[in-house]
């Protein structure tokens, strides 16, 4: 059934690297199509975490003994791996956080609080995840600033004319999704960053849905901040990355206070450590950072350019198969899309679709995808979303298509 003409990846071999993909779900071979919620993990990551606890565990940045030096070395090597993966110029620009959400909150609560004044504006888009809306809403409420929103077209593309119009000298921060989690749209962030800089705004890019699917070069983008989550790029949960330009991180006030983020403490005065440590109070998620580095090294091995090319074909193939299903409407049909197939089925609520697919061994997400404004924009309470990864196959999308036809049968179409 497969019609992808130019297989850029040996997917069958790649699938062997992911133990969970051999699992059964409700008696069927599992078809995992929820990678935008969280990706599956290759053995390399699972083993790296195991090895850390079996052979390397110790606290970092403090011990005077060999084991602690080893743990510190592994933790800092992980930072260097992240730097290289997103092409930052210096490892000190890489702050480990819990995930994209914490990265955004960190920037809002430090840079944002120090920068924003009453009447200033923060610009976001209508396709943001709640995690790139609420932190800015909270900040704007505190500062008496205004939150502005770039609208989107019926196909799910940003209206760039509106974006240009909404950028004003009062715009201090533009916080933009690189790739929409609910629609899959890849936004032209490079161009948008340049436009924002021309009015003097700083730009945060939410790369949670981009880093798993596209090569990312933060220097080429020239973004001021870039955030992503480890668990969506084949890494563990609870670890993520905030990239910030060195001079901006340097000037930013600290986030949380505690150990590791200080140089010296007296009851009168504390001197803060330099970035990134200034923003990493307390014992960090060492195992998470090491697992994340293993994930990024694994992805490098497969090749991000090859992943992007394969997923582009796979997404296009999936879209073709889905629209064959009577009554199915894709939500989000941007020209430039990554790995997300959001849809509604006439007369069937997305939650019923989700349950009926689950019964056939297919895992998708149904709901508002933490993007309620997107649902409102398209006039639906929820969508069903199949989100793809390079470990998915055209045959799995065939199974999705067949299973959706059975959903129609159940509902009497």
């Amino acid at each position: 059934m497969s019609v992808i003409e130019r297989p850029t990846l040996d997917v069958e071999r790649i699938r062997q690297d992911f133990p969970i993909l051999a699992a059964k779900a409700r008696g069927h071979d599992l078809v995992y199509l929820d990678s935008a919620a969280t990706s599956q993990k290759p053995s390399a990551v699972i083993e790296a975490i195991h090895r850390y606890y079996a052979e390397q565990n110790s606290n970092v940045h403090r011990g005077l003994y060999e084991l602690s030096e080893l743990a510190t070395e592994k933790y800092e090597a992980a930072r260097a791996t992240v730097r290289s993966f997103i092409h930052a110029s210096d490892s000190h620009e890489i702050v480990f956080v819990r995930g994209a959400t914490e990265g955004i909150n960190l920037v809002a609560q430090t840079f944002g609080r120090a920068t924003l004044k009453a009447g200033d504006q923060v610009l976001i888009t209508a396709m943001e995840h709640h995690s790139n809306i609420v932190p800015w809403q909270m900040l704007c409420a505190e500062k008496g600033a205004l939150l502005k929103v770039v609208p989107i077209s019926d196909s799910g593309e940003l209206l760039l004319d509106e974006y240009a119009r909404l950028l004003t000298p009062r715009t201090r921060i533009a916080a933009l999704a690189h790739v929409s989690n609910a629609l899959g749209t890849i936004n032209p962030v490079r161009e948008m960053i340049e436009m924002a800089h021309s009015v003097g705004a700083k730009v945060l890019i939410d790369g949670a849905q981009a880093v798993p699917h596209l090569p990312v070069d933060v220097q080429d983008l020239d973004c001021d901040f870039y955030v992503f989550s480890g668990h969506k790029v084949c890494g563990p949960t609870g670890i993520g990355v905030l990239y910030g330009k060195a001079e901006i991180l340097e000037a930013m006030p600290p986030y949380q206070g505690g150990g590791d983020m200080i140089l010296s403490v007296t009851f009168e005065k504390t001197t803060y450590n330099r970035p990134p440590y200034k923003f990493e109070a307390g014992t960090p998620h060492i195992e998470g950072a090491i697992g994340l580095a293993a994930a990024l090294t694994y992805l490098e091995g497969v090749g991000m350019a090859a992943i992007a090319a394969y997923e582009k074909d796979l997404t296009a193939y999936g879209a073709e198969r889905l629209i064959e299903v009577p009554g199915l409407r894709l939500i989000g049909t941007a020209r430039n899309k990554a790995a997300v197939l959001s849809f509604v089925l006439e007369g069937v609520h997305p939650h019923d679709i989700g349950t009926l697919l689950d019964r056939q061994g297919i895992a998708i997400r149904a709901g508002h995808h933490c993007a309620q404004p997107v649902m409102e924009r398209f006039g639906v309470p929820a969508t069903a979303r199949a989100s793809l990864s390079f470990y998915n196959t055209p045959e799995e999308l065939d199974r999705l298509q067949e299973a959706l036809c059975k959903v129609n049968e159940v509902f009497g179409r």
Partner: protein
Amino acid sequence: MNELADLYQEVILDHNRKPRNFKKLPAATHEANGHNPLCGDRITVALDIQDGVIADIGFQGAGCAISTASASLMTEALKGRRVADALSLFAGFRELVTGGVTDQELGKLEVFSGVSEYPARVKCATLCWHTVASALGEHGQDVVTTE
């Protein structure tokens, strides 16, 4: 096909397609709204209670097949019942959909027994019942949510 029918039985599909008592109740004595923020389901249930008996009941709203069919079958089950009986029926229904045991006579509501296999869907099946309990003053709030 059979595996798909363990939850989506014909009775449920029928009540989803043609919900019974899907109506406004101008003479309502009790009313409440329910909301499941996870899936966006919204429901309004109105009751006309005379001498402790549910003389009439209607619902409106939009939701998945499980929540719509549950509301429809609930209205049929509740019409003509005493208020106290309605609440104990709710208790029995909740046991049914969460895999517990009950000695309540649930009648047609038994079609929802399959819900217990799908923990994520329990809220869909019980939203209407929570809303009735709220209308009867059991929850002490205007809009009941499943969260």
